[in-house]
């Protein structure tokens, strides 16, 4: 008798727990990024007026993106991570240090990025020159359309870089 009394209570408790899981799922979804945030994920940059060795910063999905025409006398000019736009090589990467997310500063005379937070260094292709950053600056999905760079869309060059495993 007493067993049966307890048993039904447990069944009910289990069922209520199931409902709580459903509510938790809804709660989880409430914290997902909004559709308007996701939809606003494309930025177009016109690089036709870019000058060599001059860093240009764009805003893409709220993050700074470095875009720079790399000069031929930059030691990183041959790096496979650079992007070909027309006859020029461009450096394109998310401008957040891969260590803890600060924005590195560019020193054009040294062709070097130095992170103000913990001293990490990158060359002008985003490769790590000095730790602590564990990996190169991340290349965002991009697509080249003439002299325009579309951030947030995967084009041919991006796919190649991705296949080569050098985007992140």
């Amino acid at each position, binding site marked *: *008798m007493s067993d*049966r*009394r307890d048993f*039904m209570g447990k*069944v*009910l408790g289990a069922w209520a727990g199931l409902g709580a899981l*459903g509510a938790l799922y809804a709660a989880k979804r409430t914290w997902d990024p909004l559709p308007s945030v996701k939809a606003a994920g494309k*930025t177009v940059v016109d690089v036709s007026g870019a000058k060599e060795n001059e860093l240009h*910063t764009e805003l893409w999905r709220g993050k700074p993106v470095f875009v720079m025409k790399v000069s031929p006398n930059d030691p990183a000019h041959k790096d496979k991570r650079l992007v070909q736009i027309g006859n020029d090589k461009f450096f394109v990467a998310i401008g957040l240090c891969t260590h803890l997310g600060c924005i590195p500063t560019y020193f054009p005379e040294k062709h070097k990025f130095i992170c103000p937070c913990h001293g990490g260094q990158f060359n002008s292709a985003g490769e790590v020159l000095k730790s602590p950053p564990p990996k190169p600056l991340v290349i965002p999905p991009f697509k080249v359309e003439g002299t325009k760079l579309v951030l947030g869309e995967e084009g041919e060059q991006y796919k190649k870089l991705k296949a080569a495993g050098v985007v992140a």
Partner: protein
Amino acid sequence: MKELKILAVVIFFTGLVYWGVEPYAHSVMHKHVEGHNFVYDGKSDLEVLNEKVEEIKKSMASATDEKTKKAAEEELKKYENKIKDTKAFWAHVEKIAALKGNAANGKNAISACAGCHGIKAAGIKAPTDALTASKTYGVNPPDLSNAGALYDPKFLAAFILDPAHGAFVKKIAMPAGMGGSDQNIADIIAYLKSIAPKEITPKQAFESACGRCHAMRYAKWTQIGTVPKTKPNIKTGQDIEGLKFKEKVAEYQNNLAKYLGKLPPDLSIIIRARSEHYLATFVENPQSHLFGTAMPRVGVTKEAFEKVKTYLEEVGDSSKPKREAVGPWVLGFMIIFTILAYLWYKSQWKGLK
């Protein structure tokens, strides 16, 4: 059983309050307007005018001084004449509607319209942009490409014959008599039908039929088109392109408000603010709900109204499908919960009494 009796009492009083404050109160507060199924034949206009006549007669009967009485008498005469006019007007419209239009002739005839209207489908560009047009007319004259698909042919006949009469408003930018002879009007309508797209999307229906007066910010729609994608200068945060567009919208809205007496409301969430019946009957004949309103009857067909409604729902109540999908699951869960709880209750209370 005693508990069921108590429950019946609770339900009775709850139901009584609900009935009183919801269905009954709303039936008292809101005027009932009969729908006409989007048939445009002047019947609904006459209903509105007759109602007005009744109202005036009532005020005349209760008037005590001569002055009010005299004023009312004049009002009455005015409305009686209006009724006569309306009857004659719609009889004329019937005559035009009975004519067989010739689309080929209509193509020539429509060149008269191109002075103000663009017709993209026929390669005719609008003479000016929306903002400039609004400076002259108060509102941007519509492009006529979709007219044949959106508007009822009989309404079109009435509108071209005499826009103010057809739209049932005091004043409207387009003058009467622009359509020429009855046959000419029938030809124009036939032509508009011939160039109209077969399938119109809900978005197009809304933008063409409502979107020159009503904005819809949840769909980024303004009276002069969709808000363009612009981005602020990264160094200053200023979005000059965006501000320029905003300025244009503001100017257009000022012109529109001057023309109509007020700025027509944004329709983003009107689908939750008004009942379906209200929206249908209001669109069919705005005067039936808001006598004296500057909103013209737009003359959409039943199908076009359904399209507009679909769009209003997509924009204003986009979570409805989700709501309807989740509802049964939650209710099913609760019913099983209640059954299990009943079994637990019965097992706990066994042998207690």
